[in-house]
């Protein structure tokens, strides 16, 4: 699966599963040192393997590039 910061490329190339992240180019997985953000994006991308059933699906990541509490998201996922 692909993590892409734009929509045009996946719409043209049609990878089987894409996670579209609204990040500036050059940091598809988040900000430097932001372990929780990077981990969240990696998990979301890998989870597409189990959830996507339609070839060419482009899932939109719901998270803001900054000002998102990724440590809370991680805590919630860990239960």
């Amino acid at each position, binding site marked *: 699966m*692909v993590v892409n910061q734009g929509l045009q490329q996946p719409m043209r190339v049609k990878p089987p599963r894409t996670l579209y992240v609204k990040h500036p*180019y*050059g940091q598809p*997985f988040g900000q430097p040192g932001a372990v929780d953000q*990077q981990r969240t994006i990696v998990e979301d991308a890998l989870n597409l393997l189990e959830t996507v059933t339609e*070839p060419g699906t482009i899932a939109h990541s719901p998270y803001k590039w900054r000002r998102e509490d990724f440590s809370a998201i991680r805590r919630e996922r860990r239960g």
Partner: protein
Amino acid sequence: MPIDLRDLARLPPSIENMAFSKIRVERLSEDEVVRFFNGLYQAALLSHDDGDWSRVDSYLNEWERDLVSRVNPNAISFDSSPWAAFEKPLSEARIALITTGGVYVREGQEPFVDDDPSYRVIPSAAPTSDLAIFHEHYDTSNAEKDINVIFPIERLREMEAEGAIGSLAIDAFGFMGYIVGDNIPRLMEETAPGAARALRADNVDAALVGTT
């Protein structure tokens, strides 16, 4: 000192004002920059009024689509998606990492050059301090600070250690995503299939591809 209008949107050195990194404004005339900002202002005003900020997103995407087709009119497109059903749980799957961000091993591997369709085999266990980047078509400053922003190998190692994924492939693969002209068929017919064969030989179930 007068401000050059184009400075407002040029790829900036810090992340604080990177909002326009998707618009390669350095390739635009001043008239087009004015048109871009006027349109953005208008979209922002309308969105501020009705609360629908997806309008701004669509506006930026339209500009991106237009600029990408201008920069690379031969950009590859396909009519359909390849598909292989994924039938095992992630906790049993073997995962490989692929990047188009120009990552290579500093000692012993050739750096990429512009328009380079080759790839570098990067051991998944390689310390991140051994890795380097060559790519002249995106702002690499944050990736230089922490390579996980383009190549999250440390996050995947953590997931492997925790059992969240079954295992990490022996190797990751570094490509350099700025490839044009005659090197596109070389990528599609020679180098990319070579990487795919290596993944298959390592019994990889899925690849995580980070584009830059």
